[in-house]
């Protein structure tokens, strides 16, 4: 009997809590990866996002944050809770493309806005695009395609390429090949969360490649780089910033020095918004931000800029305000394409030894300007 009355009491109590929020407050639900290997991506997105909110000084924006532990089913449950129980206006935060594919289509079709601060799967840019879905970061292919273009320019004729076997991984290699416009020596697909790369390293050594391009985000990149270094294979390595962000290269150590990577942002990019961001971030969190933090920061600022002209309750007006993208991005110029994905420049960075002896990224040039994803034509918006 006690258990049943507790159930009833719990029901009554919870129902009384829903009525205390102000009608004008904006509620944002952030579902991101804060635990497990590679959690620094979610932590940085969150920290960048919250820094922007703090710097704005507004107090009418409430952010609810939950950890999805990189599980699609958990992300799904959290999204339902945010929408049904907490009635949020905007959802954001998802890092991984597979989680995004599980969550975003149903979220946007139920009328809630979703802004992606990282994941950019091709399906959501193309045939499954939706007017409530905005991607503030990049489309998955962009950075890889940019590196493909760069490597072709630099004269690497026989690259071997590698990525995990999941949507972002397959997008990565497809994107690379599309802009590399040549033949690759081999394509290796690994498992998500794989920790042992002995087999792949053996295959790379066996091939006659002159360079290695890979995409292994988070902890997978660290495991691979360490094993690569101890294997003694001598080949220049290239990748996207996802495998060479500030935190990863410090965890990898000397093995990362010399690697070149493409990124939509670098902390030594010179513009006012970026100065304000990097300084503020270093002061608040005592570390240098990664591109994920920059993306989180931009996402928050985009929302704040839209809030200047409209409230999410007025869906059409808010959507137009978002599309206008009238905010100062840390990347410099920022605009959306017709499928609400960014059109932006991609830079090249090299991992060098910093003043403190730790590896760091140094901006060395532009890989490609005004890159746009190739899927916007499939978008029926």
């Amino acid at each position: 009997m006690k258990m049943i009355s507790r159930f009833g009491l719990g029901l009554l109590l919870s129902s009384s809590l829903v009525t205390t929020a102000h009608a004008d407050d904006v509620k944002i639900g952030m579902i991101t990866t804060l635990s497990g290997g590679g959690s620094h991506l979610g932590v940085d997105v969150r920290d960048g996002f919250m820094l922007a909110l703090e710097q704005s000084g507004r107090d009418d924006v409430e952010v609810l944050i939950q950890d999805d532990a990189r599980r699609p089913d958990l992300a799904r449950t959290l999204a339902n809770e945010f929408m049904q129980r907490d009635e949020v206006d905007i959802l954001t935060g998802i890092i991984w493309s597979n989680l995004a594919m599980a969550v975003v289509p149903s979220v946007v079709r139920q009328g809630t806005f979703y802004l992606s601060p990282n994941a950019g799967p091709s399906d959501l840019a193309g045939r499954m695009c939706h007017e409530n879905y905005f991607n503030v970061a990049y489309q998955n292919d962009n950075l890889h395609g940019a590196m493909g273009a760069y490597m072709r320019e630099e004269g690497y004729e026989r690259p071997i390429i590698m990525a995990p076997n999941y949507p972002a991984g397959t997008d990565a290699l497809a994107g690379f090949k599309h802009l590399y416009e040549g033949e690759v020596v081999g394509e290796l697909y690994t498992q998500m969360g794989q920790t042992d790369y002995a087999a792949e390293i053996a295959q790379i050594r066996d091939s006659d490649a002159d360079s290695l391009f890979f995409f292994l985000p988070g902890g997978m990149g660290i495991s691979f780089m360490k094993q690569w270094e101890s294997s003694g294979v001598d080949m220049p390595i290239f990748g996207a910033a996802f495998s060479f962000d500030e935190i990863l290269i410090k965890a990898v150590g000397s093995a990362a020095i010399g690697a070149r990577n493409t990124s939509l942002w670098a902390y030594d990019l010179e513009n006012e918004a970026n100065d304000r961001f990097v300084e503020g971030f270093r002061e608040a969190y005592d570390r240098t931000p990664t591109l994920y933090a920059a993306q989180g920061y931009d996402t928050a600022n985009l929302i704040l800029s839209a809030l200047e002209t409209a409230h999410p309750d007025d869906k059409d007006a808010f959507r137009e305000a978002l599309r206008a993208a009238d905010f100062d991005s840390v990347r410099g110029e920022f605009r959306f394409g017709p499928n609400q994905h960014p059109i932006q420049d991609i830079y090249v960075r090299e991992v060098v030894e910093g003043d403190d002896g730790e590896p760091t990224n140094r901006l060395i040039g532009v890989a490609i300007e005004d890159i746009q994803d190739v899927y916007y034509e499939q978008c029926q918006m």
Partner: protein
Amino acid sequence: MSVTLLIEQLLNGVQLGTMLFLMASGLTLVFGVMGLINLAHGSFYMVGAYATAAVTASTGSFLIGLAAGMTAAALVGALVELLVIRRLYHRPHLDQVLATFALILIFSEGTRWIFGSSPLWLSPPSWLTGFVTLPGDTRYPIYRLMLIGVGIAISIALYLLISRTRLGMRIRAGESDREMIGALGVNISKLYTLVFALGAALAGLAGALVGALQSVQVGMGEPVLILAFVVIVIGGIGSIKGALLGALLVGIVDTLGRVYLPIFFQAFMPPSEATGVGSALAAMLIYILMAVILAFKPKGLFSAHD
């Protein structure tokens, strides 16, 4: 496909096999002697890894860390036996499964609470990094060879323990007839605690050694536990020899399957799909192996008295 790759993967398979043997031997002893299924064995694997990681980080010595890991796992094992397992010996298997499942939950969430969800980094010591050159121009990491060595050493030690010592005699007697050895004056409770702690120590050792190769995180013992169960079912529950043979078989089949099946499928499928299908089949391979073996020998390859 190159011979280098084959030799390397064979060695990897043997290495996986020896680590599985460390897990499986504890499991099979506990079941053979005490008639108990212990799902929490994977938690001892995890405890060993965490203890080693923590102690290695603070003392700087991998060997001290390993000793600490084994000791911690043994102590935890003894504690669990005294507090929980003791009450389960005469219970039906369902109760044993559920109680030890509860232990898994307690250990996993408890570890997550204390250490957080991020993996701990544990690296092999510098004197074990690097590689040796084997015949056929293969380069193989020293650390993995060491694991194989440890596995062989432990199997010899276990063999000597079981067949040449009084403790071993009591264990073998316990496997044959539990009640009789009690009647003959052997302290059953102490024997059981000892056997349980020994199994836990071996699991902890395996966890620590593999943790340095991969990573130390919550739940790391569960996939290994399932494999260990397959090993003892194939090998015959209660047989150490069966555990060794089963472990090597499973280790080699699993490793070679994972590498070569995707390659095989790439001959007539695009790479991404080939990897998908190949991995799917590779993952199912050992269960198919188990089903086939059980079809011919329903109680596994060896009986408990081998």
